[in-house]
């Protein structure tokens, strides 16, 4: 028998196994098998190989479940029959007295009652036995060799169904079915694919590079070397093409895919046509509904999935960036801070009631902020020429020139100004007032603040700080004063300069561990500055300074709109 015939037998048998064979094709297979023992032997070898490769566990499991159900039905049937057939009993009176009335009524005899109890107990015991054997059989059937699929790297308040059977942090999950009832877990697969599972989620692990999501939500981060990692749901298959993506599947069969990085291939499982597959790229989201199996576009929600969590503090990360305005008001960068709260430059204390009536003379001393682990300290730049200390570790920079050493207010979470000569009002950038619900830091010249990035990283050790990003400008509302004919510009060359230009400007500086990584002179009515500065992974101290330029400190109502540290999951 030549290879051509062998391959043909395989093809026909394969189609037959999958119920995809025509009567003519099966007749052809039958003819080959009937023709010679050699062909029949080849056919049998094919079936053996097929059985050894493919997972027939579900078929065997289903047969066992069928038997178990039949068993239970039989047992209960017997129980009912036993009750119905119970003998009537002549009840003896408790005391032997004359004229005893003998009452005849139908009741289970004692032997029947014992039998019933025995059967109930047996049914319960058998139930456990069935579960136990089911579990053994399921595991054996699911794979010839039960294999380790993924390591449980982190857990946070995780509660599994049948908890005692499930691993704790650091242990392996094997092929099988899992139901996370509460909390979060992170699984790491063999090619360093990580999957964060958020309860309540039911999933199965079957192969080393895939996960079957019955319902719930998961977020996958797949490195380049693991392209092809797959998430299956009841009606969809998502194949990674080098990416980060989240999948949500509800119990009604809807599957939502949100792609945050890279791209994926999405297939509707019951696709009738090849149109029901799509490459979904970063920034896009799709839904497959159970009734139509069509792929529909939906709005991306980039903060729907927990991407990272800290298993000691329980902090969750859903892809949001670190909000520096939140930090200057005592928060952790994720919304714990209080609006209008800020850092007092002289004491380093976090204060809620801000006294903004006057300009203050600064000192050359670096002031450590004790009230927040994420703020290293604050300072007034340029009090001493060419020597400003910018970290608690003693780093000094020479870049910042001598300033007048004066400043207004605090470094605080908010975008407003008030003083003795102007009423409180929201600051304005690019022609628009900054609304109260937009994170912002107001920072007049001459002020500086240093954040401790190492403390921030401790919260989310598997997340990198990629960059410092913000909009920045000087509020256009300073025109309230500059256009006032009675406004006092003061004296000296700087004041004269401001009087001449009528466009106050500042120098914005960014330092990382004392190294100047950004510097720009920015004046009022400049186009809005959209700044993004990369942060080195090893950097610890991020320092931001607003210093006066050659027009002095007057009217330097500088503000950072949406100041944030851009985060990205570590790969």
């Amino acid at each position, binding site marked *: 028998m030549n290879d051509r015939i062998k391959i043909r037998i395989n093809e026909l048998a394969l189609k037959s196994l999958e119920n995809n064979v025509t009567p003519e094709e099966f007749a052809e297979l039958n003819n080959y098998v009937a023709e010679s023992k050699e062909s029949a032997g080849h056919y049998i070898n094919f079936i053996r190989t097929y059985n050894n490769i493919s997972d027939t566990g579900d078929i065997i499991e289903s047969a066992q479940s069928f038997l178990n159900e039949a068993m239970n039905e039989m047992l209960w049937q017997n129980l009912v029959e036993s009750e119905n057939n119970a003998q009537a009993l002549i009840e003896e009176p408790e005391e032997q007295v004359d004229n005893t009335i003998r009452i005849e009524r139908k009741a289970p005899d004692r032997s029947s009652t014992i039998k019933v109890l025995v059967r109930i107990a047996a049914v319960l015991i058998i139930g456990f036995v069935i579960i136990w054997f089911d579990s053994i059989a399921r595991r054996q059937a699911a794979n010839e060799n039960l294999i380790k699929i993924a390591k449980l790297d982190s857990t946070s308040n995780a509660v599994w169904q049948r908890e005692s059977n499930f691993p704790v942090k650091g242990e392996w999950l094997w092929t099988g079915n899992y139901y996370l009832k509460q909390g979060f877990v992170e699984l790491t697969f063999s090619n360093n694919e990580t999957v964060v599972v958020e309860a309540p989620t039911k999933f199965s692990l079957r192969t080393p590079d*895939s996960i079957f999501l019955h319902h719930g939500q998961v977020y996958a981060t797949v490195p380049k070397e693991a392209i092809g990692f797959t998430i299956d749901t009841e009606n969809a298959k998502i194949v990674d093409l080098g990416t980060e993506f989240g999948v949500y599947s509800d119990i009604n069969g809807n599957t939502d895919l949100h792609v945050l990085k890279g791209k994926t291939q999405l297939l509707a499982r019951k*696709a009738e046509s090849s149109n029901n597959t799509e490459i979904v790229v970063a920034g896009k989201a799709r839904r497959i509904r159970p009734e139509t199996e069509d792929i529909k576009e939906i709005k991306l929600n980039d903060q729907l999935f927990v991407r990272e969590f800290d298993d000691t503090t329980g902090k969750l990360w859903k892809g949001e960036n670190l909000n520096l305005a939140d930090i200057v008001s005592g928060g952790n960068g994720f919304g714990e801070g209080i609006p209008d709260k800020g850092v007092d430059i002289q004491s380093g204390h976090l204060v809620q009631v801000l006294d903004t009536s006057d300009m203050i003379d600064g000192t050359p001393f670096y002031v450590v902020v004790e009230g927040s682990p994420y703020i290293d300290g604050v300072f007034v730049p340029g009090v001493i020429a060419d020597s400003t200390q910018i970290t608690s570790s003693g780093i000094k920079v020479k870049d910042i020139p001598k300033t007048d050493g004066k400043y207004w207010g605090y470094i605080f979470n908010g975008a407003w100004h008030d003083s003795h000569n102007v009423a409180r009002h929201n600051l304005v950038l690019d022609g628009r007032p900054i609304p109260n619900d937009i994170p912002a830091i107001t920072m007049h010249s001459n002020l500086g603040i240093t954040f401790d990035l190492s403390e921030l990283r401790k919260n989310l050790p598997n997340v990198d700080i990629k960059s410092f990003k913000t909009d920045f400008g000087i509020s256009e509302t300073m025109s309230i004063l500059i256009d006032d004919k009675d406004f006092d510009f003061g004296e000296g060359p700087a004041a004269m300069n401001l009087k001449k230009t009528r466009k106050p400007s500042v120098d914005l500086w960014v330092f990382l561990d004392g190294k100047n990584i950004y510097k720009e002179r920015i004046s009022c009515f400049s186009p809005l500055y959209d700044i993004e500065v990369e942060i080195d992974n090893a950097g610890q101290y991020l320092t931001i300074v607003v210093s006066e330029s050659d027009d002095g400190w007057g009217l330097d109502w500088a503000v950072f709109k949406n100041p944030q540290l851009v985060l990205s999951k570590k790969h």
Partner: protein
Amino acid sequence: MKNSSNNEIPLVKYEEFLQLFVNHQSKIFGYIITMVPCRSIAEDILQDTLLVMWRKFSDFTPGTNFAAWGVKIARLNILKFYERERNSHIKFNSEAVENISECLSDLNKKDDSNNTEIKALRSCMNKLTEIDQKMITFRYMRKYSIKEIGIHFGRSAHGIYKTMARIHNLLQKCVEREVSISQH
């Protein structure tokens, strides 16, 4: 053994039965799917077989070949299927059944070599080309349908069946070779 019709709870026997079945399930199912090569039909026949095996477990003599006894019952169920589903086209004729039975009988006479075969199969899968390995993974590990694999590779289902058949042939030849080497 007293079965359920005797109104007794054969708990210990049921445990024993399940354990025996777990140990021999692959042979019994293997027989069914060889005789009726269709997963969904084979699944139904396996269910019926399992139920009959349990009901007739009192007839089984401990210490004898459980798999052979199960196969005997499966054979009867397959015949019942043939009778019941007269219009099904997935039916071998008597010549084909005879050839299959003889080959299976020859195989049974040999030592149980399935574990050796599984080891050989693993080794052979590693020898496939990357694209062939991918196809096998997609089909059997990730359970893509042939149609889905076609979509993934931009090919027709017909073409994928042919390719899968070729890959199976490579694996069969390789397994035969490796098993043969291991036996010498």
